[in-house]
């Protein structure tokens, strides 16, 4: 009945791995190492991170005059192996990042989608809340929450989620405001598709890229946030190991053991830098409009 139409030419679909082509290699290697250490740190670490050996206290790293290869990055005031502790600290960084990002992303995305999609009164109320939340200094909030709850990994996650969900909510709301005017959303409404289905099928997949980019960019901030809280004694507690805690422990001996504070510092710096560089690449790749954020 209709005129002839040529069959469409299928385009080869990119394999998932091929999408990483062009990704910055060094950041990827660093992040990979951190994740690996978090999962299998016990297998590669030379010592138990909490093994104290007072005879071996304050050993400098291997390249220093009195250093040795048995403790490549030296030991701290209790003679604990710094390399092993850094490796063990990966676990906390990764776990905190995962939970904090998952929750702040999920809450922020949900609130942002609702706010953007429904608009009107709902949007106004939510956005006021976000503004109030954003005007509270996050460290004060952290102190308050940590005091109310008990210091520990859970608290760290709660504080970070509390601080960061607004960031997701604002950006996702903006995204949804433009997505909801797309013709395919209008079509779905015309066809009588229910609102939850529209949100899930037409909006969520289209904000996934943005979410992914935001999440990667958040990693660095989460790690620093956790370190700061632990440094202040509001975060991770002994015997768990975290980079922030290592900084805090080493602070008193900074004049006789510079390495004890420098090594975890470098670990934090490298991981954040790697996460940010990878996040930048991902953003340029998936969602260049976010560059203004």
């Amino acid at each position, binding site marked *: 009945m209709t*005129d*002839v*139409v*040529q069959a469409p030419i299928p385009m080869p679909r990119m394999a998932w791995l091929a999408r990483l082509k062009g990704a910055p290699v060094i950041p990827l290697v660093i992040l990979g190492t951190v994740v690996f250490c978090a999962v299998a740190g016990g297998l590669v670490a030379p010592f138990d991170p909490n093994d104290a050996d007072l005879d071996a206290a304050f050993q400098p790293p291997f390249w220093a005059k009195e250093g040795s290869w048995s403790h490549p990055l030296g030991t701290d005031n209790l003679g604990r192996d710094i390399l092993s502790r850094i490796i063990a600290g990966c676990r906390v960084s990764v776990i905190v990042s995962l939970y904090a990002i998952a929750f702040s992303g999920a809450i922020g995305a949900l609130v942002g989608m609702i706010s953007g999609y429904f608009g009107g009164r709902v949007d106004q109320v939510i956005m006021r809340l976000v503004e109030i939340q954003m005007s509270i200094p996050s460290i004060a909030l952290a102190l308050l929450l940590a005091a109310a709850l008990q210091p520990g990994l859970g608290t760290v996650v709660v504080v970070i989620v509390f601080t960061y969900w607004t960031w997701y909510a604002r950006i996702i709301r903006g995204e949804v405001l433009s997505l909801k005017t797309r013709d395919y959303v209008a079509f779905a409404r015309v066809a009588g598709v229910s609102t939850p289905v529209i949100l899930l099928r037409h909006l969520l997949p289209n904000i996934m890229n943005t979410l992914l980019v935001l999440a990667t960019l958040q990693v660095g901030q989460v790690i620093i946030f956790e370190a700061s809280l632990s440094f202040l004694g509001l975060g991770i507690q002994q015997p768990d190991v975290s980079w922030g805690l290592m900084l805090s422990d080493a602070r008193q001996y900074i004049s006789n053991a510079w390495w004890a504070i420098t090594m975890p510092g470098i670990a934090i710096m490298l991981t954040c830098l790697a996460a940010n560089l990878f996040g930048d690449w991902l953003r340029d790749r998936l969602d260049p409009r976010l560059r203004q954020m």
Partner: protein
Amino acid sequence: MTALAPVLAIEGLKTYIHLKRGVVRAVDGVDLTVGAGETLGLVGESGSGKSMTGLSILRLLPKGAGKIVAGSIRLDGEELTTLPEKVLARDVRGRRVAMIAQDPMTSLNPVFSIGDQVSGPFRYHGGLPRQEARAAAIDVLQRVRIPSPEKRLGDYPHQFSGGQRQRIVTAMAIGRGPRLLIADEPTTALDVTIQAQMIALLRRLQQESGAGIILITHDLGVAASLCNRIAVMYAGRIVETGPVREVFRNPAHPYTRALLAAIPKLGSRGRRLVAIPGQPPSLIDPPAGCRFAARCPLKVSACDAYPQTTAVGPNHSVACWRAGEAV
């Protein structure tokens, strides 16, 4: 066409765009001439290479990717393809060859007043003092029928309607008396009544100035009402050229015929449109033979080789093995 030397003569022009996906053969062997005072309509559907042909003349191709790979473009006998970029920018662009683009908003700078933008070329390139440049701007705005231009020189582009903006762009284009005017879809963004004003304006300018005009359009109605001669472009090549009456009355290329049968016309109520099956070929990997072959009702095995251009009437030539034959 007249026996006089043409203003513009293009021969064997090939402009390719190098992309990651492959080489887009946007213009792939185009011959064209435009005489003084003549309006040539370059018609064809989107992506057929009309704009690239126009941009090749000014060498305003996509940066890094677009390149003229073969052919010659002569303006009043002077070869443009070998002209250094600097000379082209100084003597040709905006001066001997001017351009009107489809979207007037992109041709006007939103942060400068109309007066600054229209008088600028007179001052900085034409070397006129301020007052005289202003007078020249008023004069040229009057020619494109902007009401009381002396009062509106201080206004900004957004304070004008779409039709007025397009006329201001036209004023800037004709200001310095170009030999050739390239108008790329100058009326496509306009409403019918405003389009009619623009068509009337272009027709008057052509009579007054004696410049050659290349009118790029996909609208056969606009082409018919403005042009002396028509060149039909399909997939990077010109498939038919001839005097406007010839092309519309006795189209000889199967594509031209199909196109004319496929568009609704006023007064043709109830007749079923004759659709052209399929879609244009990709310009990355165009077919070796006739590019219309996949959609052509007259296709024969000879069409696997690219058809030679043959004359079917005075100044009327067609690139088709079966030019002029009935279906």
